[in-house]
């Protein structure tokens, strides 16, 4: 939508919406923007860090200098590394259970009541 209204390909450096003082689509561009009912997004902090790091320094520089923030933001959104890690643990656990070297404790075998 930004490209629809701001058309940077045809009119770059002309921030039309700020000039006219209107907010047609900038309110929905970032999760860290103002949300209805003041509800916060799950990756609000990571996105805020990344935007603050990468703002105003250009894409080439941002890709170099804000690598860690971007990686954290990506991980928060998609949890790729977390899921990979969990998968490996599960696979190893199943292998060990098949071999017979490991028995899951009662709270992992589904028999106990959940308690805080």
């Amino acid at each position, binding site marked *: 939508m930004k490209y629809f209204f701001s058309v940077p390909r045809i009119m770059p450096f002309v921030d039309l919406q700020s000039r006219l003082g209107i907010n047609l689509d900038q309110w929905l561009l970032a999760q860290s923007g103002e949300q209805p009912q003041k509800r916060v997004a*799950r990756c609000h*902090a*990571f996105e805020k*860090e990344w935007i603050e790091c990468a703002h105003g320094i250009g894409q080439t520089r941002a890709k170099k200098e804000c690598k*860690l923030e971007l*990686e*954290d933001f990506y*991980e*928060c959104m998609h*949890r790729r*590394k*977390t*899921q990979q*890690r*969990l998968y*490996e*643990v*599960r696979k*190893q*656990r199943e292998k*060990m259970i098949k071999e017979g070297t*490991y028995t*899951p*404790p009662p*709270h*992992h*075998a*589904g028999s106990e009541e*959940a*308690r*805080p």
Partner: protein
Amino acid sequence: MVCVTQCVRAAAGGAGEQRGFSLTAAEEDASGAALDGKMAASKVKQDMPPTGGYGPVDYRRNLPRRGLSGYSMFGVGVGLLVFGYWRLFRWNRERRRLHIEELEARVALLPLLQAEHDRRTLRMLRENLEEEAVIMKDVPGWKVGEKMFHTDRWVSPITEELFNLRPREETLRKKFGFLWYV
């Protein structure tokens, strides 16, 4: 009676015309005479009008002007609407007060609920960590409890992380057992 014979004659004449010729006068008289004779001979009991004819029939239009006028009907409708709206607004205000009361109750209970939830999360994470240490002790190059983020901030664990070593149905129940909306 007269009509009957005339109608029959007309029908006979019409039928005759249809066939391409018409009855001659003599044949017409013969058919008429035969019918009259049959009627005069037997007294058949028929449903006849009373002697002297029927009484007078009031056949004039009867469209009485009655009821409310258009304007007053409109007024009654609008009045009912306004009354309904007044009732609705009053009840909505009452519902808003009740909703605020419910929210206040939730605010009062929040610390307790949040503390319970946090304790539960931490307990499950601790159990997972200990089990991971046991399971992955033979895997080379594995760092137990390794963090996936470069930051030191506390990142809330996702359901998969908490329920990783438990039966799959527990994860599904946690994720899909209660749906806020469908």
